[in-house]
């Protein structure tokens, strides 16, 4: 499954890039699965996802919980809790 992965704020800084195009294994079916799989890709990724519990996600630009399925999704973003306003 081909996915665009985006990172923001300190997640982006820790991963070292803002965006990656990745081919994700078929057994990665949820947002939570994806975060766990990404954490295995490099030391930087592992470091970024070490605090996985505080990282939020969005599927195709809509907020999504770890249980959200990846079927038919083309863009997944990971970021800290928002701090605008």
């Amino acid at each position, binding site marked *: 499954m081909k996915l665009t992965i985006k990172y923001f704020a300190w997640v982006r800084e820790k991963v070292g890039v803002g965006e990656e195009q990745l081919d994700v294994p078929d057994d990665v079916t949820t947002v939570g699965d994806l975060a766990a799989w990404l954490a295995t890709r490099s030391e930087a990724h592992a470091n970024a996802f070490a605090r996985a519990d505080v990282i939020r996600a969005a599927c195709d630009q809509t907020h999504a919980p770890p249980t959200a399925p990846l079927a038919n999704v083309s863009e997944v973003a990971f970021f800290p809790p928002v701090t*605008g*306003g």
Partner: protein
Amino acid sequence: MTVRVQNEDFDVNAEIDALRGLSDEIGAIVTFTGTVRGRANGESLSAMTLEHYPGMTERELARVEAMALERWPLQGTTIIHRIGELEPGANIVLVVTASRHRQAAFDAAAFLMDYLKTSATFWKKEAAADGSGSWVDARESDDEALARWADPPA
């Protein structure tokens, strides 16, 4: 029904007048302006950088605005959020609501800010006067503020 994400500053008078012109039934206009504090918890700030998620941010702001319009009788709403580098004292965010009566305008503006704070994809990084930078932590009180709106309005 306006949402803008921009680096440029905004003009509160101009935004009020834009809403005022929409209807001759408007009797109440509320604005909320959020600004970069020059000092917080005793520490001086030299600057703030606002990062956001282009595309998703605008979608979230439009969604939150639509929720407010469904919930209160509003003649108009405006949300403007700045991004990029901002100096201490600078404007960050503007919310404007216009209604026939004041309560709807006040409630809708507070609602928009509460939702924006917890769902719009912005992140603040503060630069201290000593040159160090740190991402601002989300405040638990923002989640609590949001819980106020769980029940339908009286």
